[in-house]
């Protein structure tokens, strides 16, 4: 068995875990399975690409367009990322205002909101295809050679950066959720939104914060995926099943759970590719999802309903 599968799994799992955290937060606080989450990843990547392309042109004009060694991208991408995050957040807040928020106010059943998110997901994807075409796009066309990192594994600097960035974001988010008033309010709304109101928590504010965090992480996950592979309108949709599998495996509402779930899915995919064959990769998340739902529906760190 080649240990390369470990680092490959961790790299893929970082993107899946980061996306699954946003999904698990919206699932536990808004109480519906948000199918648009995968499309937020894709929109985040495309929006960042747009800003990055614009900034890249400007920076090239100033003679600062070269890649930031040892990475494959120049200053355009890190400077564009906050803008991409901000616009993705605006997109999700807008969608909540015109769609999900309206349904919540009318007391719509969860299944109605889920179906609405499914429809919105298709619309968002089609819109991306309409605006950017279905041709794959890239943050950079620089080639990177994977370097030895020990234990018989290799990785590119970009790949190691995504793992480090994921770790940083997960730690930061864990601190926010466990140590700050906003995090406590989020956990309270997740457990009992009606009681949270009695405690004085503004539930609408918590919902907005949840969208903001979820959209921000989705954008970063989309950019990471786009940087390591490519950007396509279907990139988020294709990640949806692994994201759900990771969120449910980790236990709905658990941030460390979603991250660990993502890493497990990533590792399982990588080992499946190595041991069985690449054509079975897509089946891994589905198998894990079914097994968790049958054996331990609360997931690894979730609380039984």
């Amino acid at each position, binding site marked *: 068995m080649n240990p390369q599968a470990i680092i490959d799994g961790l790299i893929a799992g970082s993107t899946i875990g980061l996306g699954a955290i946003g999904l698990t937060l919206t699932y536990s606080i808004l109480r519906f399975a948000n199918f648009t989450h995968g499309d937020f990843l894709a929109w985040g990547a495309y929006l960042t690409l747009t800003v990055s392309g614009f900034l890249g042109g400007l920076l090239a004009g100033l003679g600062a367009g070269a890649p930031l060694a040892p990475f494959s991208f120049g200053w355009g991408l890190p400077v564009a990322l906050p803008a991409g995050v901000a616009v993705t957040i605006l997109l999700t807040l807008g969608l909540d205002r015109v769609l999900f928020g309206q349904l919540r106010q009318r007391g719509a059943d969860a299944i109605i909101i889920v179906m609405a998110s499914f429809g919105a997901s298709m619309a968002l994807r089609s819109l991306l295809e309409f605006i950017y075409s279905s041709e794959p796009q890239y943050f950079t066309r620089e080639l990177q050679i994977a370097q030895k990192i020990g234990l018989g594994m290799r990785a590119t600097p970009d790949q190691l950066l995504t793992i480090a960035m994921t770790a940083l974001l997960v730690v930061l988010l864990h601190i926010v959720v466990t140590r700050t*008033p906003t995090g*406590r*309010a989020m*956990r*309270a709304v997740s*457990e*009992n939104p*009606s*009681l*949270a*109101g*009695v*405690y*004085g*928590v*503004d*539930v609408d504010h918590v919902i907005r914060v949840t969208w903001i965090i979820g959209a921000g992480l989705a954008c970063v996950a989309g950019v990471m995926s786009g940087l390591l592979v490519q950007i396509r309108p279907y990139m988020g949709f294709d990640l949806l099943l692994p994201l759900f599998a990771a969120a449910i495996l980790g236990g709905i509402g658990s941030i460390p759970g979603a991250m660990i779930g993502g890493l497990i899915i990533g590792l399982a995919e990588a080992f499946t590719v190595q041991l069985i064959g690449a054509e079975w990769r897509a089946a891994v998340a589905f198998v894990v999802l079914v097994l968790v739902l049958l054996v331990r529906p609360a997931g690894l760190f979730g*609380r039984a309903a």
Partner: protein
Amino acid sequence: MSALTVTGFKAGYDPDLPIVKGVSFAVDTGEAIAVLGPNGAGKSTLIKAIAGQVACLGGRVMLGGDDITGLRSHDLARRGLGFVPQTDNIFTGLTIRENLQIASELVAKPQRASRIEQMFEMFPDLKSRPSELAGALSGGQRQMLAAARALLTDPPVLMLDEPSAGLSPKLVAQVFETLRRIHASGVTLILVEQNVRAALSLASRALVLVDGELAHEGPTDDLHDGDRLGRLFLGRRAGATAG
């Protein structure tokens, strides 16, 4: 001056089928009143609606001089209307301290820590294990935590929905002793209770609700006679004769 004035109040889950049908009453500052009545009379719906948990379908609610009709529960909490629901009244997945910390967000920042410590002094059972999950508490301790949470913000009016529900007689006595202390500190209490004996021992005045309407309002001394209370619970208004 009235701490809370309710006028022609209607509430329920369906606008065409109000459960509370035009109830009016006032509670004086520092007073403790009991809201009594048979099952399904609309007692819990009445205080849940005042607390913003059930839709208000008509009428008006004044907290002191402020019109609070139809405000949402977090706004009401910020304005000083405390409410302790009957069940699920604490966050079981959060620690005891975290439950109090969430409520303390309504208090000015410099006073938050000291208010939490004051609650621990008032409810010593909670003090010994602040980092324990609230879900591990017994029924009586949960009611203590719920009361501590509500009192932490020093609300002028505190409404409790059946604080004795599901508790052993010993714990009921303990909870009502705590409520007596809370009332003695000057808090206006509105108590919905099925345990009539316990409620009458605490409140000075009672409202009897029957089928969503106010069937009786008066001093609790009038209601120690079980027969009279029984007649009221069966839906006969005070002064009405059978026939």
